[in-house]
């Protein structure tokens, strides 16, 4: 999509630490990325790689204590979100940046009507009166494809199915016409057909409303279909960042390669989960001084145990945090072929 578009969200060196009684957990370790106007940025990575914590840190949605968000700046519309006051942050949340969460079954308040919950941000951010807010809420419900929207405003969340509830969540997130929509695994909890419907809906809405989207998912198949650029996260860091085509055609980080082999192939049998991706992302007790993937990496060599790789540019808008991409460091560099059976 728009390639040279200016960034509307700039994240620099974001770091998040949970200060727990059992010790610190470094969940986000120096994440930097840009989000450009109108684009769809995919964020992938295994469970526990820090995707959600990164996005919630941006908006100050983590409970503090235990969470402590450091680093930055996170620049959005000329403001550093990490240093904005609570009032300014509330104006951004729900007003300028919408958020859709993973589990639609629990993300709506069970004791308030759906209409009330959509009207809340409308009244707060746009200052609409009761009647206007209600009319707008009905429009929004219709927009996200809920039939008989006007009537359903007075229903409670439990009267909606999972897919319907996720549509309601999307309506809430889009209520105030945000510049950015962050969708944290919006379809993971839904079954496949509903998933496809929600993805289609999001695509359509993005075209209509022109906002930029950050889409977090485990599902590389989805990313391939909708993203403009992709960020791959591991151990609270960005290990690879590339335009979507480049990522699938030429992954430059062993972790990305391993992830890609776990994608079901269109034809032929499902590729077995790679042996190299055995194990789990680390839980980091301190800021990583060495490569976080080294213990699971088939190519790890001495440097990997001593230093944390920077993000090496490997192509147009494409970088990977792996020493194999450093011509000066890599030992007889094993040929990183595209794992593509």
């Amino acid at each position, binding site marked *: 999509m728009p390639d040279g578009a200016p960034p509307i969200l700039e994240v620099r060196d974001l770091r998040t630490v949970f200060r727990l009684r059992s010790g610190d957990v470094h969940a986000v370790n120096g994440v930097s990325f840009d989000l450009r106007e109108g684009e769809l940025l995919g964020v992938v990575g295994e469970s526990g790689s820090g995707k959600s914590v990164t996005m919630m840190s941006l908006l100050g949605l983590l409970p503090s204590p235990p969470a402590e968000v450091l680093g930055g700046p996170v620049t959005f519309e000329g403001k550093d979100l990490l240093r904005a006051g609570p009032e300014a942050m*509330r*104006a951004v949340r729900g*007003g300028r940046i919408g958020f859709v969460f993973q589990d639609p079954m629990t993300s709506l308040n069970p004791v308030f009507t759906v209409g009330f919950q959509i009207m809340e941000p409308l009244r707060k951010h746009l200052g609409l009166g009761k009647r206007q807010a209600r009319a707008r809420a009905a429009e929004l419900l219709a927009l996200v494809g809920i039939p008989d929207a006007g009537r359903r405003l007075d229903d409670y969340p439990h009267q909606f199915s999972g897919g319907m509830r996720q549509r309601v969540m999307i309506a809430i997130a889009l209520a105030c016409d945000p510049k950015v929509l962050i969708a944290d695994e919006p379809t993971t909890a839904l079954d496949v057909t509903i998933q496809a419907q929600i993805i289609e809906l999001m695509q359509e809405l993005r075209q209509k409303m022109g906002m930029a989207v950050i889409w977090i998912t485990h599902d590389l198949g989805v990313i391939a279909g909708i993203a403009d650029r992709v960020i791959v996260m591991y151990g609270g860091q960005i290990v690879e960042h590339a335009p979507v085509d480049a990522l699938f055609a030429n992954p430059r980080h062993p972790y990305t390669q391993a992830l890609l082999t776990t994608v079901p192939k269109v034809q032929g049998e499902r590729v077995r989960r790679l042996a190299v991706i055995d194990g789990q992302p680390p839980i980091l007790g301190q800021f990583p001084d060495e490569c976080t993937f080294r213990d699971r990496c088939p190519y790890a060599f001495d440097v990997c145990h001593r230093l944390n790789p920077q993000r090496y540019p490997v192509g147009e808008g494409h970088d990977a945090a792996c020493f194999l991409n450093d011509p000066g460091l890599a030992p007889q560099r094993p040929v990183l072929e595209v794992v593509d059976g």
Partner: protein
Amino acid sequence: MLTFTIRRLVLAIPTLLFIALVIFLLLDMAPGDPMADQPLTIPPEVREEMRRALGLDQPVYVRFGLWLYQFFVVEPLVVIDHLFGTAYSAGQARVISWQFKSPVMDIIVQRLPQTLWVVGSAYMLGVLIAIPIGIVSAVRQYSVFDQIGTFISMVGFSVPTFFTGVLLIVIFSVNLGWFPSIYDTQLRVTDWSSFGQQVRQMALPVFVLALFNAAQISRYMRASMLDNMTQDYVRTARAKGMDERTVVLRHVLRNSMIPVVTVIALGVPSVFGGAIITEQVFKVNGLGALLITAINANDLPMVQTLTFIFAVLIVLFNLVADVLYGILDPRIRYD
């Protein structure tokens, strides 16, 4: 909801009848003789005559039937007569207290205000202080306020009311002389000074009961708030840009109140029970005191009636709790 309530009320009838029967049989089996406090000089024939006058020579089922009839038919008629000036109950025998030789219900009605004043205001006060304390303790979990609140409610909950009662009497009545130690039932509130006196004599018993109730309810409130504050919908509310006040007092509170309201409703009858002890300690001449004296005097009709009324309250407030639950939680549907 209405059909549910009616159905539950109808279902409550056999339950209550059964409870009444059990109470009656238990009391009948209990040792003790209503004639025990009569002078020993009364000759046996007269004694027998008196027993017959009380209907004690009848078999159990006749006596039970009579009590049922009097309680469920005659007493309501008396109330109707009283309200509308009719005379349906004329000539009908009412449930008579053996010790006072007058209708049980009249005595209960006489004693009810004392209990309601003391127990009722203590419960309301307890709830009113418990809810904000529970909210603040949850929002500021582990803060100094929360720690102090936890300590006080542990004390309030684990130290029995007869102990706190006596302790307060010793400190505030005996040593400081601020409050009277005995509740004056005869006191009529007619002007400001008698009102002040009423407030002063209520202060200690109300405080003791309120502390006890608040200790329990504030814990429930805190736990319920904490449960809800980690729910996903709270994060959604924050992500919508709602301020903390709205998040806590609207989104979290509304959900947290559902179980707490149930606990409050279910607690009402047990408060009457718990007041028995407090009434003894402070000499409040209410229903609790009435029950104790009736037990001591083997006044079976009085004990039977009071116990049964407590049972009715329990069944009733169970229903109230269920109905409130249904009103507060839209996910619950009764039909």
